[in-house]
């Protein structure tokens, strides 16, 4: 009851503050306040209230460790992105300088993160202090490297249940998870994109056949379908782990290509009715020229947006499959598996925040890349199509 009353009181205060804010604003005579709705003013006040709450949480609540980390991380990343953009604006050839000059902060953040991930993935063997499969004698070393607390400076993030260095596995995870997801998405786009454009251009029975096949595939819940196929595939692959990974790439690629097909067909359908396609047909151009030279350049914007999104979905599917134990197989390091293996550490949040953060680091690695890729794709879309908002 008190809680409800408290909320109502806060609400009333905010509304009153909003009204006062608008009133003062109107006295100052700025155009912004002239047509401001009360709801808008209330929104501003709510924002201020929440910001104040955040500041209070940050400075005066010792238990809010994770919140503090999140805020610090946000600020650090923002500064890094800003510096990166500043660097890009002043170093390098004229073309990239111009690119960086028009770039929003979100995009430079995304590019920075993608570069970091790429470097980590490519040079994992050099950067990681240990091998991903190396097993050490000390198991369950706590993170932090503080000997008194049960840590070990040789393993900054500690070791897992069978004594593998977690920092190294986190770095190798970039190689495996991102690499496999990227390969899968590219295959899905090649397959779905080509078939979708073909269906849009030729139409008729081919369109019907392909579309109905895609409908059937899409009717089955994708994760369960992938699980089912992976079970079959693991029987085929037997003990050959690499073969199983290959099967996984193909299975996820095919399942995801149905979504790409849908998009490519819809976008292609809008483009083939244009007069310039008719002109090209009347010129006597072949199918390959039509698809790759006339249609594809006009479909890049939506396909690019889909690529960013699809990449993230594939990434998450692989992580989920690994989490369920049928994806990337040990001893290969992978973030999905790490989240599963380390998940019980989250119970230690009250005693040792750093330990509890271990599964969050793997999950955060996934989340960060997802956000980064989408920032970059949004920006590319904005640039290529003049997309507003």
């Amino acid at each position, binding site marked *: 009851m008190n809680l409800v009353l408290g909320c109502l009181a806060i609400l009333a205060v905010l509304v009153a503050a909003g009204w006062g804010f608008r009133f003062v604003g109107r006295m100052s005579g700025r*155009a912004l306040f*002239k*047509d401001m709705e009360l709801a808008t003013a209330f929104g501003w006040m709510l924002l201020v209230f929440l910001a104040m709450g955040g500041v209070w949480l940050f400075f005066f609540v010792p238990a809010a460790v994770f919140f503090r980390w999140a805020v610090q991380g946000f600020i650090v990343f923002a500064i890094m992105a800003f510096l990166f953009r500043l660097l890009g604006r002043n170093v390098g050839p004229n073309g990239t300088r111009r690119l960086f000059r028009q770039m929003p902060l979100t995009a430079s953040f995304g590019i920075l993160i993608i570069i970091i991930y790429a470097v980590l993935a490519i040079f994992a063997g050099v950067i990681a202090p240990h091998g991903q499969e190396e097993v050490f004698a000390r198991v369950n070393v706590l993170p932090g490297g503080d000997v008194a607390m049960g840590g070990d400076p040789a393993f900054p993030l500690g070791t897992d249940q069978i004594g593998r260095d977690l920092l190294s596995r986190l770095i190798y995870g970039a190689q495996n998870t991102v690499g496999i997801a990227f390969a899968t998405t590219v295959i899905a786009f090649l397959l779905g994109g080509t078939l979708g454009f073909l269906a849009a251009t030729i139409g008729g029975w081919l369109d019907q056949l392909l579309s109905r096949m895609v409908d059937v595939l899409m009717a089955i819940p994708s994760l369960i379908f992938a699980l089912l196929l992976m079970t079959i595939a693991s029987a085929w692959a037997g003990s050959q782990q690499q073969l199983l990974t290959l099967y996984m790439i193909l299975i996820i690629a095919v399942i995801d290509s149905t979504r790409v097909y849908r998009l490519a067909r819809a976008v292609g359908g809008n483009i083939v009715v244009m*007069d*310039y396609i008719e*002109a090209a047909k*009347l010129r006597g151009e072949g199918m390959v020229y039509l698809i790759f030279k006339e249609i594809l*350049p*006009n479909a890049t914007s939506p396909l690019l947006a889909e690529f960013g999104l699809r990449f993230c979905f594939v990434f998450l599917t692989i992580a989920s499959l690994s989490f369920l134990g049928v994806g990337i197989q040990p001893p290969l390091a992978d973030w999905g598996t790490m989240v599963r293996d380390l998940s019980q550490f989250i119970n230690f949040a009250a005693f040792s925040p750093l330990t509890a953060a271990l599964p969050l680091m793997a999950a955060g690695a996934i989340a960060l890349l997802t956000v980064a890729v989408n920032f970059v794709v949004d920006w590319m879309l904005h640039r290529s199509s003049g997309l507003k908002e």
Partner: protein
Amino acid sequence: MTQLLKIRGLKIEGRSDETWTQIVNGIDLELDRGEVLGLIGESGAGKSTVGLAAMGFTRDGCRISAGTVEFDGIELVNAPAATKRALLGKRIAYVAQSAAASFNPAHRIIDQHTEGPTQHGVMDKGESEADGIELYRKLRLPNPDEIGFRYPHQVSGGQLQRAMTAMAMSCRPDLIIFDEPTTALDVTTQIEVLASIRDIVKQFDTAAIYITHDLAVVAQMADRIKVLLKGDEVEEADTRTMLSAPTQAYTKSLWAVRSFQRPLKPDIPNDTVPVVSVRGVTAGYGSVMVLHDVSFDMHAGRTVAVVGESGSGKSTVARCITGLLPPKKGAIEFNGKAMPLDYRRRTKDQLRQVQMIYQMADTALNPRKTIGEIIGRPVEFYLGFKGAKKRARVEELLHLIELEPKIYVDRLPSELSGGQKQRIGIARALAAEPQFIICDEVTSALDQLVAEGILKLLARLQDELGLTYMFITHDLATVRAIADEVVVMKDGRVVEQGGKDRMFAPPHHPYTDLLLSSVPEMDPDWLTNLLAERGVDNIGDAAVDKM
């Protein structure tokens, strides 16, 4: 008496690439009650922007940077939104260019009609419906009692435009802004809309701003005319003075556009083989036949204009000739030899000989390719030119269409104006070195001055290269300017055909007569006279059965 609308020193800026550029440079405008002002100019002259600003409104990305807009003593530029809300729709109404795009397709017309009066509390829903039906009757819409209960897609474009005028009238506003209300309509439909708009504006003594690029239309509608050019006022005068004695050079050039005409060519000897002949073509989509036994010939170096309203099948003939729509019956002959009906069966050389220029240059040019690529492709594809030879040919073609190669060859279509885009379309057709070019309404999307430039270019190219044109159009002024022979089509049949001199001289087929008499003339009394001649009551009927 105070003036209804008074605009002083209006300046409007538009935002592009993060900078503000001025698009209207200080316009003054005054309007009395019950007066109709015509605003004319080319696209980009700022006439729509000024029209919207009269409501105190600007499009997204525009702002009023200076000046005042005073409506009946109320300052609108800095008025709070609540003040504007009370005025707009009730005392100031707006009729947009495309009624089809302005109606919500998910609601019935009458429901959209009653929205304004009920929102403003002028009438309740029942009263407003009854009033709407009364307005439909006044605007001479067919079946006024029930037409409002249809959805927008169930009525024709001209009727929708009148329904929108009724909607603007629903609160009996003091001022209506008409933004090119008849531009998208056929000549015969246009007359009906013009007549009903003019009547109802007079009847309710409403003031109006009539925005258009068509001088002949504005001559019928407006009491006064103001000419705009690139955001500046050129001149203003009452309609009769403006038409008889324009003072500015620009206005004179606008007036002179319609005078372009080509000399008559000698008769064709009887035994010459036509370049393209359409023989007894019957064609359609699915089981519905659009063309019925259409036959006509096109001779070398001549321009054949195919004329008719939308739906008369003139574009379908073009699709049959190009082979996109193989006819059910009949033949297409090229230089006396039958061509395969389906374009997929035609040889590369046969495809090369028949080229097409499209109405909408926007959709006819691939937006992702540079001008050089667009024109270069047919050069490479048909003639096998590569590298420097291809580039030289592309530059030659650009010279031919009067565009400077150095500037334009690497541009994208979006960086060109409408007229320039249409020129690129012509260059692409020429690149194939064809004998025969189909021009499908190539000038109807362009301003008059620009359109005239395109027509002159086409005429010059014909004289230089001996091309044969099939010119599809609904605009008889264009026909008069460029055609040698005319084919009049209606409901998929050829109604009349022959040399231009014969076609423009009586006696005509009744349909040709209707088409010819519907072309607006620069005489301000033309509409009044025409209506008197036809008998006003027949106008509405003509809409129902279109003769």
